């Protein structure tokens, strides 16, 4: 009977959505392979840990210490590795968030376990778990099989659905940890105030060189605010210094898959398309009818973005009123 363990990420004592997704997928995979699923959460006080039962987790091991309140790569990875080794877990799941992508490889190296990171699909073939993940920023996909005895999977956030939880409650076991290894520690978090991150957004409004000047992004910001969306940008405008790198979508920026993606004044260089082609719906507004973005857009307006945008903002205002 394979023993599965899901890492539960908390920030400010709240469980992150990507952890529910990982729990659900771990539970489904364990059902197919005949395994058990427990979870591990590292932190100070964390709310709603018992609700993970609704996603198929039988027991949540809460490694507790006030020094765990903020993320510490060294403390978290050491705590997880020790817990896994002491309790004989074999298959580990993480959400491939910023924290998950930092932690999973450390844990994998320490446990001498193969790692499949950023998985977008998982299936069971016989007794194997086959993970699918994008490579070359999504220009291709690979199927992976982990051959080591211990295996680590990190799932790309927002791809798998956690679904609605059942009423089941998980047993919560608090494990006191005496002296966390704080060799690497987070001393401060600087939030980008009031901004939604492109990596987590449901809707993204992106602008490219066709916006002509940084001040014209005011229109993009207005539309994104109306829609509760994140502002995105092409590499050209980030390299020109018009927008911060955190907003860059594409192969050397963020790879995103929102429900709705607006590409405004973006022609669609191959490295941009690679970063957003898995968006569910793509809207493109560009005056060049031959722009590559139209080859993957669901809806397009071949027209002047400066003429179309004000009307678009006006129409969206109407429906949001």
């Amino acid at each position: 009977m394979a023993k599965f363990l899901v890492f539960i990420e908390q920030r400010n004592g709240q469980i992150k959505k990507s952890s529910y997704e990982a729990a659900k997928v771990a539970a489904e995979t364990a059902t197919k392979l005949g395994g058990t699923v427990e979870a591990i959460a590292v932190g100070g006080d964390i709310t709603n840990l018992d609700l993970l039962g609704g996603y198929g987790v039988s027991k949540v091991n809460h490694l507790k210490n006030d020094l765990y309140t903020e993320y510490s790569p060294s403390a978290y990875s050491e705590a997880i590795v020790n817990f896994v080794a002491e309790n004989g877990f074999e298959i580990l799941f993480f959400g491939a968030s910023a924290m998950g992508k930092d932690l999973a490889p450390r844990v994998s190296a320490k446990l001498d376990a193969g790692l499949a990171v950023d998985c977008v699909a998982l299936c069971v073939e016989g007794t194997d778990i086959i993970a699918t993940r994008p490579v070359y920023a999504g220009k291709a996909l690979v199927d992976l099989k982990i051959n080591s005895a211990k295996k680590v999977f990190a799932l790309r956030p927002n791809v798998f659905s956690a679904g609605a939880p059942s009423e089941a409650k998980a047993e919560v076991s608090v494990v006191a940890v005496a002296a966390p290894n704080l060799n690497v520690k987070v001393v401060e978090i600087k939030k980008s105030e009031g901004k939604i991150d492109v990596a987590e957004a449901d809707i993204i409004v992106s602008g490219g060189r066709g916006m002509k000047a940084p001040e014209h992004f005011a229109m993009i910001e207005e539309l994104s605010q109306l829609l509760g969306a994140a502002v995105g940008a092409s590499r050209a405008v980030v390299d020109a210094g018009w927008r911060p790198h955190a907003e860059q979508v594409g192969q050397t920026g963020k790879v995103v898959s929102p429900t709705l993606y607006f590409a405004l004044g973006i022609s669609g260089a191959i490295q941009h398309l690679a970063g957003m082609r898995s968006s569910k719906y793509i809207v493109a507004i560009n005056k060049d009818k031959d722009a590559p973005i139209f080859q993957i857009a669901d809806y397009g307006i071949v027209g002047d973005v400066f003429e179309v945008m004000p009307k678009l903002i006006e129409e969206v205002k109407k429906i949001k009123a």
Partner: protein
Amino acid sequence: MKIAVCVSHVPDTAAKINIGADGKSIDPAGVTFVVNPYDEFAIEEALKTKEKLGCETVAISLGGDANKETLRKALAMGIDNAVLLKDDSYRDSLSVAKALAEEIKAQGAELVFFGKQSVDYDNSVVGQMTSELLGFNCVSVAVTFALDGTKVTCEREIEGGKEVVETSLPAVVTAQKGLNEPRYASLKGIMAAKKKEIAEKQPAASSNYVEVTAMKRPAAKQAGKIVGTDSSAVPELVRLLREEAKVI
């Protein structure tokens, strides 16, 4: 102190990717390979630190002979020495990390820079794995780096903000875009790099932990509907988004 920079040789981001005959890797025909873009930030940070502290720098790359091009570029930018860990076969992240950790140990480096990810396999994990194998501290996805004695302070990018992280040497730092502005190699640097020896070493064999069973193309996305050619099409666009796609 010695600084190591680990670099990889990858297809240019403008390259079109075709699947090779084995169905498990890309067809390299017609693909231009370049220094991994994130590794340029790693090289630059090593050079800036070298200029401040006067330490020795070495670039390390694992792969075939073609990787020498990328090592030459690092030398041309100003890195002192280069080592090619020669291996033409496929290696997964952990077995790459093992080979790099061995070499970093042999070099006696105390500070190691990586790009935060290679834009081929996009794993974003080799730096963190290498740090664990070495027992070094590690900060990944760094957008700032400061070294004061042995104290390392970095900001790393997270969802919706940045974390300020403190640690100490020996350390691995993986570079995110924004960390610095990589310099261009000077003509003098390029000429000097041509004359430099690139050390070749055979990395210890390691079995792969992860096997690629297939490589495939993503499902093709069909071109959609052109709704119109000016702002008069906007009401119809908004209607489609509401009623057909049901996304706003």
